[in-house]
């Protein structure tokens, strides 16, 4: 499933805004399966890099190349934002929306929505307005809405930021199911415990650049850079 889209190669990718460099130059290869955790201090460029890979941020320099065409690659991806954006519709209509966009008949889309409602623990809430859900429910709904089209690649921007333990556990369970189903995931997170639990590999960003890119076990046991070691030790890293 992943092979059609990956590997992705970012070469000298930079994003500037109002003359200020947000990330770059970034050289990164994304391949294989599982979950890649993007970690780093605040302002390191995690969200910007995610958005640049997804095409929501325009590169000012460099390029990002997919195994397939850029348009085809974007169609095979989904993105879940740190603050989930809820359409002003019911829970069920939010879930059915991406399927309807891709031409799925209304009844089939709604049936899939009902199934996903049960899967994420929102059964019985199909008719409720999505905008009035709790933070955890919104995040689960946003994740389910992203997964309902079975994307090959899923970008997550701090999916469990400001969620309690139970909601975080539910989100992580969904992510495990998604990776088992073959969805490749790239996730920005501040939660080192979450990165340890879920990640196959880690990309450590600092000042908009990839400082370290290693298998998760190797990175957490023996980071190869002083900055990464200091970050893992809880020291303040700029």
């Amino acid at each position, binding site marked *: 499933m992943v092979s059609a889209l990956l590997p992705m190669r970012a070469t000298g990718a930079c994003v500037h805004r109002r003359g200020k460099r947000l990330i770059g130059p970034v050289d990164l290869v994304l391949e294989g399966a599982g979950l890649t955790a993007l970690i780093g201090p605040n302002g390191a460029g995690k969200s910007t890099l995610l*958005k640049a890979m*997804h*095409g*929501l941020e325009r590169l000012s320099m460099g390029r990002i190349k997919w195994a397939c065409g850029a348009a085809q690659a*974007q*169609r095979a*991806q*989904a*993105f879940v*934002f740190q603050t989930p*954006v809820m*359409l*002003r*519709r019911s829970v069920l209509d939010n879930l059915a*929306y*991406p399927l309807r*966009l891709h031409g799925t008949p209304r009844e089939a889309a709604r049936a899939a929505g009902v199934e996903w409602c049960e899967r994420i623990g929102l059964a019985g809430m199909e008719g*409720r*307005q999505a*905008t*009035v859900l709790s933070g955890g429910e919104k995040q689960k709904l946003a994740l389910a809405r992203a997964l309902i089209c079975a994307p090959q690649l899923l970008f997550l921007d701090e999916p469990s930021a400001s969620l309690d333990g139970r909601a975080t556990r539910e989100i992580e369970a969904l992510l495990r199911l998604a990776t088992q189903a073959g969805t490749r995931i790239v996730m920005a997170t501040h939660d080192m415990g979450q990165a340890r639990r879920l990640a196959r590999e880690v990309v450590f960003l600092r000042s908009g650049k990839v400082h370290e890119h290693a298998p998760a076990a190797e990175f957490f046991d023996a980071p190869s850079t002083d900055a990464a070691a200091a970050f893992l030790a809880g020291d303040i890293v700029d």
Partner: protein
Amino acid sequence: MNDLWEGLWQAARLVLSLDADLYEIAARSLRVTLSALVIACAIALPLAAFLAVQRFRWRRATIAILNALMGLPPVVVGLVVYVMLSRSGPLGVLGLLFTPTAMVVAQVIIIVPLIASIAHQSLRELWAEYHDLLISMNAGRMQRIATLLWDGRRALLTAALAGFGRGVGEVGAIMIVGGNIDHLTRVMTTAIALETGKGNFALALGLGFVLIALSVMVNLAIHWLSRTETGGRW
């Protein structure tokens, strides 16, 4: 003050006595304004959504012009439509001058900028909220517009009602293009203007009160039908 009380009495008398003329011109007022509203919404709402989602070279200028046209003088609109529809005008062959259709045309021109501007303000905010999500989902331009129109329907209803209010109270343009012909193009506002001109202030006020009641009823009916105040709907 006496005129006001007399006007209220006249209004009640006209309504309760089932005055045929009153019901005829009230029905014509509603028919003309609601027709204009439907046509104007069909033009203005997609235009507002397009201006919200699409970036193009003259976008800011277009929005500025649209906002400026909200204050379009109805008399000038009436004159322009009159010239266009008069026998010697480019559309004279259609024979529409002094017909309800001409009045609808004039009202559409007057209320399109108003509805489009108000709708655009709301849809622009909604687009700012949805932008990244819809781009991320690969929604096409038409799908983005349709999504904004559906999810922003409450604000769009407000825009439409503002257009209805402007249209139903309009007198200058429809007097010129309609001619205030009895049993053909006379509507509430032109009847009020006529009675005021004749010095029948009480009857004019009575018609005015009926017009206000009509406008309030239509607004309430639209709110009720669309259930805008139902809790948790948005």
